[in-house]
């Protein structure tokens, strides 16, 4: 517990640095939020009034201190675009993005690890070479292109999977508690919504997961090959442990250590990738919200999103450390 607390405290300076960098970058922008705020037909005086009203005519340092003070009280301000509290909008969208990225992560792990193990077991023979080529291709494919191709094939040509959105329009989403449709629908025993939500998440999650599958497969493969050359594997073989059992239980646990450390990095990549995927599949998550904020120079939203992603990063890193400690007893003592 103290470990988590210490890690959380360590993350604060980084988050602060992140805030400074983002704040500076946003405020050197030529785009004037006051113009956006005033709307299409506003006059110059109207714009000036709005600039004053939002404190946009204050020196940068003043604006920053004011902002940090607000953030410290968990007040992220109002969106300059929609005039709504940023925190409300962001929290409302977070479950959609979390659901998408978590499903993608599960998919990446559930497929990436076995692929990596199989490749390692057939080291340098054709299954290995094929899987290696495929996994590199998985990292090389442009997400936006893959998403469009999947849409064209599975939604338009075959009509098997929905084109867009998170749930068929008009279908009522179950009320809470998690906001994750797949979980909530099961909790409410609503199979219609579950099937529908599942059908909707397949394509975006698969698009998002592909790079992750490839990455995890690569690290697992390297990990298995490394572990296989270790003495304890020799010993286990010499004491007659069945091969499949040896690999899938004993070798795998050692091999996923490296892959697990990748998952932390991967999660950041998934969040970033969701910007593209959400826009193509009309997924109502923070990725789309972010793009909108970028297009409208909505600085409060951009700052909050950056902070949120920073916090998610920190949390994921702590979780990664915990997962590694759960796998490796030696790490547990080192803390």
């Amino acid at each position, binding site marked *: 517990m103290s470990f988590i607390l210490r890690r959380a405290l360590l993350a604060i300076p980084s988050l602060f640095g992140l805030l400074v960098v983002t704040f500076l970058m946003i405020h050197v922008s030529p785009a004037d939020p006051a113009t956006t705020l005033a709307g299409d037909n506003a006059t110059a005086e109207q714009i000036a009034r709005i600039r004053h009203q939002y404190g946009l005519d204050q020196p940068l340092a003043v604006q920053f201190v004011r902002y940090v003070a607000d953030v410290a009280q968990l007040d992220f301000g109002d969106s300059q675009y929609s005039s709504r509290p940023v925190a409300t909008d962001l929290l409302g969208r977070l479950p959609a993005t979390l659901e998408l990225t978590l499903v993608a992560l599960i998919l990446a792990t559930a497929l990436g690890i076995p692929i990596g193990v199989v490749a390692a077991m057939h080291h340098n023979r054709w299954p290995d070479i094929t899987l290696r080529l495929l996994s590199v291709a998985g990292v090389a494919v442009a997400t936006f292109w893959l998403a469009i191709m999947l849409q064209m094939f599975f939604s338009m040509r075959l009509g098997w999977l929905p084109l867009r959105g998170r749930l068929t329009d008009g279908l009522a989403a179950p009320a809470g508690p998690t906001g994750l449709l797949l979980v909530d629908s099961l909790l409410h025993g609503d199979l219609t919504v579950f099937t529908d939500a599942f059908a909707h998440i397949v394509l975006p999650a698969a698009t998002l997961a592909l790079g992750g599958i490839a990455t995890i497969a690569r690290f697992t493969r390297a990990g298995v090959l490394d572990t296989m050359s*270790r*003495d*304890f594997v*020799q*010993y*286990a*073989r*010499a*004491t*007659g*442990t*069945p*091969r499949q059992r040896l690999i899938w239980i*004993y070798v795998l*646990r*050692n091999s996923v250590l490296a892959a697990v450390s990748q998952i932390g990095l991967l999660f950041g990549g998934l969040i970033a990738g969701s910007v593209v995927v959400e826009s193509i599949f009309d997924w109502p998550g923070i990725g789309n919200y972010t793009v909108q904020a970028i297009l409208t120079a909505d600085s409060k939203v951009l700052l909050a999103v950056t902070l949120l992603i920073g916090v998610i990063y920190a949390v994921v890193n702590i979780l990664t450390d915990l997962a590694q400690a759960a*796998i*490796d*007893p*030696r790490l547990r003592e080192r803390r």
Partner: protein
Amino acid sequence: MSAPILDVSGLRVSIHGEAGVARILHHIALRLERGRIMGLVGESGCGKSTFIRTILGVLAKGGRVESGRIAFDGIDLLAMSDRAMNSQIRGRRIGFIPQDPLLALNPLFRVGTQLLEIMRNHAAPGDHRARLLDLLRRVQLPDPEGALRRYPHQFSGGQRQRLLIAAALTCAPALIVADEPTTALDVTTQQQILILLKELVAETGTALLFVTHDLGVVAQTCDEMAVIYAGQMVETGPTRDVLANPRHPYTRALLACHPDRSTGFASIPGTVPPALHMPPGCRFAPRCPIAQSACPARKPHLLTVGPDHTADCILYETAA
């Protein structure tokens, strides 16, 4: 005399790697009777470990048995499939004690899990846990109950080796192969482990093939010994005979190097030949002080030089 538990003859093993073919074992022959302890002695790199791996059927990648026979209790091990070796021999009838007990245990699993895994695969049905605890007490491990819940790195070196000795005994094997089991330990611990091993052999009636580079350990522990040089078996015989009356020039040189024996600092001139470029014939010939011109042409084979005492040297060719 009953049939030997281990009978190896004419064994040749090579490793096929990127750089070429390394003929690691060139001519290995030995017989080990039931309940006896045999020390297998040689410098590092002479092929001792490869020999053990060959017996257990876990040769490294590219390893290939070119010729020869390994009979274990009359069964031809080289003819067995990997699956059969796994289910009938390794861990079940041949126990194994590795060189470095720290590296040999998976650091991520509890010791209990790992030892019970071996029993799960091989031991007769029954209360494995209780039997394991018995064994741990037998190898004098403190707090056996707690030990099962601990991880490998939480033990001292000696304790770990005791664990692995217990592991080798779990299935009451007819043969235990120990690969330098005391090398990684400090001298006092080494003594305790050796005494323990000797007691256990006497008690359980298992045979022990004890691989080491330490002649002192052999002298103290083993009934018989075999000397190996660059993949060739050069001398075998009862420990006392061989030590008292070494017949092969290499054995003599080795004994001369041993600090207990030699009066001054002595060493064998030259180096062990590289695995990829082994000399023909007798591989010791290039370093042998009494080599003859015929040595490089000699096909290796052991010659009887005394009661149960053999050596592989051109010197005894005529005497035979």
